[in-house]
């Protein structure tokens, strides 16, 4: 099963390689990984998407916790949370197709961030399904390039006090 795990780490050089080395050394897989500073500049947050059975996920959580540089590990699986990723899609846009592409962009509440005589570059944020859907719709026009950030996640706030 797929898990999205958030890891708070001390913001120091080498910490990314400690985490990625742990995954490669123990044969765990990483589907995506994003890193950036938190509000506290001494702490970074990594969001890791990984896959494994319960036993493997338990080991991943424990092994991450064991690293001296890791402050906190949180697995979002099974709780209400928001997941987002961002993609830039450069799609061929001939004069005949431009209107249709723009309407897709509109429907998905995406944005055209760069235009050239032969292409649009679309910025889209959303969960994986949404990005997958717009990619599929753009495919017939010809996708020249695509860049995705990998997933970030945040727990939803409780709805009641």
């Amino acid at each position, binding site marked *: 099963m797929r898990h999205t795990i958030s890891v708070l780490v001390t913001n120091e*050089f*080498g910490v990314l390689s400690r985490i990625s080395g*742990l995954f490669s050394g123990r044969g765990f897989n990483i589907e995506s990984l994003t890193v950036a500073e938190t509000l506290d500049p001494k702490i970074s947050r990594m969001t890791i998407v990984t896959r494994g059975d319960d036993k493997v996920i338990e*080991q991943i959580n*424990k092994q991450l916790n*064991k690293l*001296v540089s*890791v402050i906190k590990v949180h697995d979002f699986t099974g709780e209400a949370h928001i997941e987002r990723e961002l993609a830039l899609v450069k799609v061929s846009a001939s004069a005949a197709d431009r209107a249709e592409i723009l309407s897709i962009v509109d429907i998905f509440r995406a944005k055209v961030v760069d235009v050239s005589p032969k292409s649009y570059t679309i910025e889209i944020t959303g969960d994986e399904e949404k990005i997958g859907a717009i990619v599929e719709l753009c495919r017939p026009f010809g996708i020249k390039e695509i860049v995705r950030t990998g997933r970030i996640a945040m727990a939803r706030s409780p709805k009641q006090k």
Partner: protein
Amino acid sequence: MKKNGAQILVESLKKEGVDVIFGFPGGAVLPLYDVLYDEPIRHILVRHEQGAVHMADGYARATGRPGVVLVTSGPGATNTVTGIATAYMDSIPLVVLTGQVPTALIGNDAFQEADIVGITRPCTKHNYLVKDVKDLPRIIKEAFYIATTGRPGPVLVDIPKDVLSSAPDDYRHPDKAHLDSYQPTYKGHPGQIKKAVDFILSSKRPVVYAGGGVVLSNAADELKAFSTKLNLPTTTTLMGLGGFPGTHPLFLGMLGMHGTFTANMSVTEADCLIAVGARFDDRVTGKIDEFAPYAGIVHIDIDPTSISKNVKVDIPIVGDVKTVLKDMLKLIPQKSSLSGFKKNTAGWHAQIKRWGATHRLSYKQESNGKLKPQYVIERLYHATKGHAIVTTEVGQNQMWAAQFFKYDRPRTFITSGGLGTMGFGFPAAIGAQVAFPRSTVIGIAGDGSFQMNVQELATAVQYKLPVKIAILNNMMLGMVRQWQEFFYDKRYSHTCVSVAPDFVKLAEAYGAIGLRASKPGEVDGVIKKALAVNDRPVVMDFRVDPFENVYPMVPAGQPLNKMLLV
């Protein structure tokens, strides 16, 4: 005058109570060696950096205090890797200080540059590159704290040369290390502890399976109290030897691939297995699906990753073995109310006794026959009455030392269990002897392993360390040859070492004493002579039967009860 990084570092080491460093100098650590010239701390000059790490490791295992290593950058640092990995696998507290090229040159492929922090990341508990001399006292404090607390392990600190030679305007030695991200759990969960005790008392066929955690946590007394109070049959892993008295009637011997028949059968038939500071290594469990198939498993370990890693555990207790055992002891009822438990387990004890009576560890020494390696170990035990620190190399010598010498006290059996490092035993013996100059330290070796760090004879001679090396010399890489005999149709590919030095002459060339025994009748005399030497190392060359095998043996991938017996 302002102090430079090297002086600050030595101050830090002294504050940590470091009394000896095992090291080898070089360009990048010159500022530090300049401070050591005034001998503020004892320094043992090794002949190879790998030897330094194993010595520090042997020192740490024998004393319980962290071992300290100092080497230079580049090759000095990379030579420590096997030693660090050895200590990491067996959870031994070490602080390894490596020199590094000056900060400005890092990343430039400078002379004697190696990314040792990158190289050792997977085999250290943690490591550091010191970029600013002001961080040095804090990092050293943290390094010792991390190495010695929780599940211990090696910590490497890489220090560029300019950090050692620059003098900060002000600096401060912290009193305590504080890390938000590192807080090991010592106290076990009271509910789990209660559950475990109740489960044990309801069992009919209980067995304690104790590992190196008992030794690391200094919990041998607590384990003995626990096992004897409940009359629990107790087996240990290789790393656990000495953690429970080897001559105690409740001791079943070691379990696992070369464990005793009794220990392996007991674990297989048990309905309650109490794992104490052990990690269900494949050499212990054999075929994992058939390990302790009838048992509910209680597992006490300070490292949560060890729990349910290989074998699903029923009652996990995360905590320090000593602390948890103490808490468990408090919950054990008075003797009078244990009569039900005693009655329920009587049949089990009788069964274990029968296994023990029919299948002892055995070998046959004919008085005029070839010298048997097991006999040599038994005579060493007899001559020292067990009052010795024994280190081993890896292979047959290690297994016979585990089987035929009895260890009543913790920290008297020192071996590379996890990594299985040939070349470990001799330098580890030197480290133990440095820690305990007046104790008898015996390094049990094979001719193959001994040659992997034989250069340290010079170190032992230089510091007048009377370690006794007993080479079980079969002119073979014996354990591999044994596997070839059993599983590769006796095709002895590259395991018959036909060229070897004359170990007696080799010892003498280094200024040590060399002795030889080729017949059973010569063994006691050689041992007696060796034990009388107290000012230099002794190498005993025992020419043993080359085709002797270690029994019992559980072939790899087989369940524990499928042993090959003598």
